[in-house]
């Protein structure tokens, strides 16, 4: 292994190699951080919402008739929907997870206006909420049908009971074990008390990027206002055929309102994470293209470098180098240049990652990505130089004696 002489020769004619090393370094830095971003997005997208996504769809009923009787309409609608075959349950709520629109409020463990609160997402629902969303009650109990009231502009206070998500419970009462949080009281709107009657394992809020996305609270009330969001859960496999059926049924029951924005929970999730999915695709494309360009750059510069040294190759062959020896020489030379680039790239990648973490609040990369990227680039570099190196090994020894 002629590492010493190869290195000394490199040092004396650096330019082409510095260019390759720089390209590799920048490629490495981009590759590592792109992977970090991709991993982050994938992690975000993989978070379960807590509801039975496969079997839920939702739609909005917007009333426009001036004499629209909301309470009667909701009762009528829910009864009709719940009676349809294939429907597991339905509620009249305000939103579903990941919809990017909804209610949130600050709740605290003590009453008062100057108490620091914790933000939670609010889901208005009745006693069918747990079954409709498919939530897992891990402590306490569901609302009773008699608990259900109304909330809106005409209310003087919030409903007096609530079911919260595990994360909300842990944030509000960090030192209390979960089963003991049932029965505790929290305060909303500064002074309205809410007794925690139950805790569910998980229910995400409507905003995927909110840092309180895992903190939610269900309250037993119908929401006043002209828009109602019906959430319907079906038996497995029934969802797609039920959707137009429900829409039609609601249109038949009441024509003082329009039905709009009907969507499956799957699609709601896809829409919520649309930009993340797109970013991932873009990054994969950019990294692939970049690697291809760098590989081609290596092929180009290596070809040129080999062509420039034809006489040297012939001389080495004359001096006793076999073809594999010449091949190994150029592979080793490239390996050394790549290594410089890769190590520099690793440093650059970490620096870039630190900057990204600070500026865009990215999660720092997992350590193992860097060695994996290094190995990948080594392989790419070696594959790229193989062609020119093989051509070098085919240079006939007789080149050495050709006149200048």
């Amino acid at each position, binding site marked *: 292994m002629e590492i010493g002489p190869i290195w000394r020769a490199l040092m004396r004619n650096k330019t082409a190699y510095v260019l390759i090393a720089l390209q590799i370094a920048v490629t490495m830095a981009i590759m590592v951080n792109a992977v970090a971003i991709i991993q982050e997005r994938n992690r975000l997208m993989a978070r379960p919402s807590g509801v039975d996504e496969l079997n839920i769809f939702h739609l909005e009923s917007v009333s426009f008739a001036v004499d629209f009787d909301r309470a009667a309409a909701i009762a009528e609608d829910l009864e009709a929907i719940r009676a349809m075959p294939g429907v597991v349950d339905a509620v009249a709520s305000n939103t579903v997870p990941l919809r990017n629109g909804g209610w949130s409020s600050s709740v605290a463990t003590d009453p008062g206006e100057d108490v620091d609160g914790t933000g939670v997402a609010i889901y208005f629902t009745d006693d069918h909420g747990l079954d409709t969303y498919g939530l897992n009650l891990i402590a306490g109990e569901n609302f009773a049908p008699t608990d259900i009231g109304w909330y809106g502009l005409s209310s003087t206070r919030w409903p007096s009971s609530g079911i919260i998500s595990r994360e909300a419970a842990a944030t509000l009462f960090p030192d209390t074990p979960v089963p003991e949080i049932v029965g505790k009281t929290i305060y909303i709107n500064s002074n309205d008390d809410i007794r925690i009657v139950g805790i569910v394992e998980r229910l995400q809020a409507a905003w995927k990027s909110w840092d309180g996305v895992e903190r939610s609270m269900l309250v037993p009330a119908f929401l006043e206002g002209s828009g109602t969001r019906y959430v319907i859960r079906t038996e497995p496999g029934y969802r797609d055929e039920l959707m137009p059926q429900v829409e039609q049924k609601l249109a038949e029951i009441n024509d003082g309102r329009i039905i709009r924005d009907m969507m499956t929970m799957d699609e709601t999730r896809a829409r919520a994470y649309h930009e993340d999915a797109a970013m991932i695709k873009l990054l994969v494309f950019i990294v692939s293209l970049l690697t291809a360009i760098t590989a081609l750059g290596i092929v180009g510069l290596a070809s040129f470098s080999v062509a420039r040294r034809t006489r040297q190759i012939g001389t080495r062959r004359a001096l*006793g180098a076999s073809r594999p020896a010449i091949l190994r020489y150029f592979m080793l030379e490239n390996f050394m240049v790549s290594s410089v680039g890769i190590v520099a790239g690793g440093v650059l990648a970490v620096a870039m990652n630190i900057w990204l973490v600070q500026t865009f609040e990215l999660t720092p990369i997992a350590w193992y990505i860097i060695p994996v990227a290094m190995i990948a680039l080594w392989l790419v570099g070696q594959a790229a130089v193989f062609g020119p190196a093989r051509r070098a090994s085919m240079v006939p*020894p007789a080149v050495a004696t050709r006149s200048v």
Partner: protein
Amino acid sequence: MLCMHNISKVYRTDSVETHALREFSLTVDEGEFVSVTGPSGSGKTTFLNIAGLLEEFTNGKYELDGNDVSRLNDRDRSRVRNEKIGFIFQSFNLIPELDIYDNVDVPLRYRGMKAAERKQRIGRVIEMVGLASRMHHLPSQLSGGQQQRVAIARALAGEPRFLLADEPTGNLDSAMASSVMELLTEINNSGTTIIMVTHEATLARRAGRNISVRDGRVNSGPAMHIAAATA
């Protein structure tokens, strides 16, 4: 030591057949200093390439130290070149990015020699050609004559069976040419076989025996007479 018997080399292209060597025979004994002369196009470069195992030949037999090296594979040929032949080229063929030490080192690396032994041999041959003080200079920092001396050192480092020199003084002025020829004579005097290809009569006279080549054949005629005619 070296025996080429009825070597012929034919280059074939689509339409043309060129006979570079025809029934070329040569025997060289150990310790000889043989010059091979001829005008350009006579085939002496082809002879050189074949003698140095740089090219294969079409017909004939080539024996080195009793071993038939005619039809070896690439790996074995390379090994024979490395162990038995020391090349000296007209344009020196030193690697410009390597210093003197590393240049002389090249053939020893292909022999897989250990570092300590390499260092010892390199030191010895560089000393022998009188360039010990320039061991870490680059070729570009040396004169033509000095570069050729380095090439000679490189050729000697592996203790080859014979040196094969191709117009060793072709790119040198007369003063440097003289000193290089003196060095070669000295090396031959201490027992190393030398085969030198040249078109210059004055150089050829320094050798012990002269073979003249014309149209790919050995010219059978008094060596000196032919050499004078082509001088």
